[in-house]
C-alpha cells in the first residue's frame, strides 16, 4: 500500500503514466516471509528508488523518472551539522571492518558496521576484501578539498545521488551508520595517516 502511495506521489510529481509494477509480486513476497527479530515484513515494501532499481536484467530505465529520483536523493543528503567531515580514522577502520548489523540474527542494541571490506579493498594489509566495488586503497591521494569532502560524504550518505541504482547501501539515508560513524569512515578514507593511505609494497 505504502509502495503504491510512494509510486503515485512520484508519478504525479512528474506527470507520466504508471509503470507496470505488479501488485501481485509484492503480495506473493509478503506472504512468503514472517517477522524475524528486527527484520519485519515492513522491510519488504519498496520505496520509489528500490522499485525503480528492480528491473530484471538491467533493462534501460526511464530517463525522466531516473532524473527526478536522482535529484530527490541529492536534495535529501544531510551534511554534518558542525561542518566538520572528518572524525577518527582508527574508529573508522573498525566500522569498515564490521559486517554485523540489521540481519535478523544481529543484536540491534549493538552498533551496525559498514561492511566496506565485503565489497572494497581498503587498507592494503587486509587481504580478505571483496570485489563488488572498486578498490579504495590510496583513496586519500585525492585530497581533502571541499568538493572532495562533499562528494565522499554524499557517496556514503546516498550513493544514488550520483549513480542511480548503484549496488552500494545508503549508509546515511537508511540510517545504517550514524553521523559520527560516517565521519570516522570519512577519516579512514581521507586521513593521510589512515592505513588506507599507507604505501603498498
Amino acid at each position, binding site marked *: 500500500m505504502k509502495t503504491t502511495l510512494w509510486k503515485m506521489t512520484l508519478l504525479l510529481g512528474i506527470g507520466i503514466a504508471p509503470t507496470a509494477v*505488479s501488485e501481485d*509480486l509484492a503480495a*506473493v*513476497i509478503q*506472504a*512468503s*516471509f*514472517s*517477522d*524475524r527479530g528486527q*527484520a*519485519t*515484513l515492513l*522491510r*519488504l*515494501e*519498496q520505496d520509489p*528508488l*528500490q522499485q525503480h*532499481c*528492480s*528491473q*530484471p*536484467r538491467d533493462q534501460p530505465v526511464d530517463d525522466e523518472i531516473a532524473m527526478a529520483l536522482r535529484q530527490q536523493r541529492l536534495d535529501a543528503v544531510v551534511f554534518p551539522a558542525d561542518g566538520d567531515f572528518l572524525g577518527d580514522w582508527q574508529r573508522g577502520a573498525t566500522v569498515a571492518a564490521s*559486517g554485523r548489523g*540489521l*540481519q*535478523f*540474527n544481529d543484536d540491534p542494541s549493538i552498533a551496525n558496521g559498514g561492511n566496506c*571490506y*565485503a*565489497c572494497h579493498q581498503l587498507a592494503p594489509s587486509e*587481504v*580478505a*576484501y*571483496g*570485489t*563488488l566495488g572498486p578498490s579504495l586503497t590510496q583513496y586519500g591521494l585525492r585530497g581533502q578539498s571541499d568538493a572532495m569532502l562533499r562528494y565522499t560524504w554524499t557517496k556514503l550518505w546516498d550513493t544514488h545521488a550520483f549513480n542511480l541504482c548503484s*549496488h552500494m*547501501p*545508503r549508509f546515511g539515508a*537508511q*540510517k*545504517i551508520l550514524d553521523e559520527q560513524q560516517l565521519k570516522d569512515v570519512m577519516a579512514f578514507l581521507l586521513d593521510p595517516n589512515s592505513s588506507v593511505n599507507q604505501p603498498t609494497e
Partner: protein
Amino acid sequence: MITRWCLLWLAFPAWADEGVFDQYRDLMGDDNPAIFVIDEGEEFWYQSQGPSGATLEACDLGLGAGVTRGAYAQFPRYFADTDRVMDIETRLIHCMETLQGRDRTVTAAKPYSLRGDFGTELEALVTWLAAESEGVVIAPEQGHLKERAMYALGEEIFFYRAGPHDFSCATCHEQSDKRIRLQQLPNLTDHHDAADAYGSWPAYRMSQGLVRTMGWRLQDCFRQQRWPGLTFGSEVSIALQTYMAVNAAGGIMTAPGLKR
C-alpha cells in the same frame, strides 16, 4: 545408531580452533562426510513411520511412485495431485502426510537443523535423493504453465531490491568473477555458474558440520540480504529454486557438494 555417533563426532562445533579443523581434514582427507548422511537418508526412505506405519516407497517424486533415480534433477516441477509447483523438500513433506499420515505442522516445523544439532530427517532424505541424481543432467520441468509462471516469478524476485541495504539476489549474484571478502560469488544469471552452484547442493558445510539443502541456502542468503525470515516451502522459495534450476538446465548434478 553407528551413523549417529559418527555424525556427532563429525559435527565438531563451528567455533573449534583451527587445530581441530586440521586434524579433521587429516582424518577425512577429501572424503565428503555427506556419505554418512546419504546412508541415513536411504534408511529413512525405507522406514515405516507415522500413524499409517508406511514407508515412503510409494512417494511419487515426478517420475512415478517410488522412482528415486534422477528425480531430484527434474525439480522443481508441477504435480497434478496438489495442483502446485513443488520443490523436493515440500514434496517429501507432502508424501509424509499422504502416505504416512504424519502431520505437516510437525514434519515441517523444523526442516533444517541448528548448529550443533544432528541433521534432520528431511536433510538426510534430500541428501540421499540428490545422490540418486549424481551425474544426471539438470532438467527441471517447464512444460506446464504454472512451471513457466514460477520461473518468471523467480526472475522478478531475483532482482527485487528491498530492505535497509537495498539488496536483491542480483546485488551479489548477477556478475561473474566477483567475491564478498574471500567468498567467491556465483553469477546465477549465467548458465555455467548457475549449473556449478545449483548442481552442488545439498552440500556438507565444514564450518557447520552439517549437510545443508538449497532451501536452507536461500533463507541464509535472505538473512544476509537483511530481509525477514523466509517461510519453508513458500512461493518465493520455490520460485527462486525454479529460476536457478532452469538457468542451470543442461548442467550436471554433482551433489552432495563440500563447502567451507
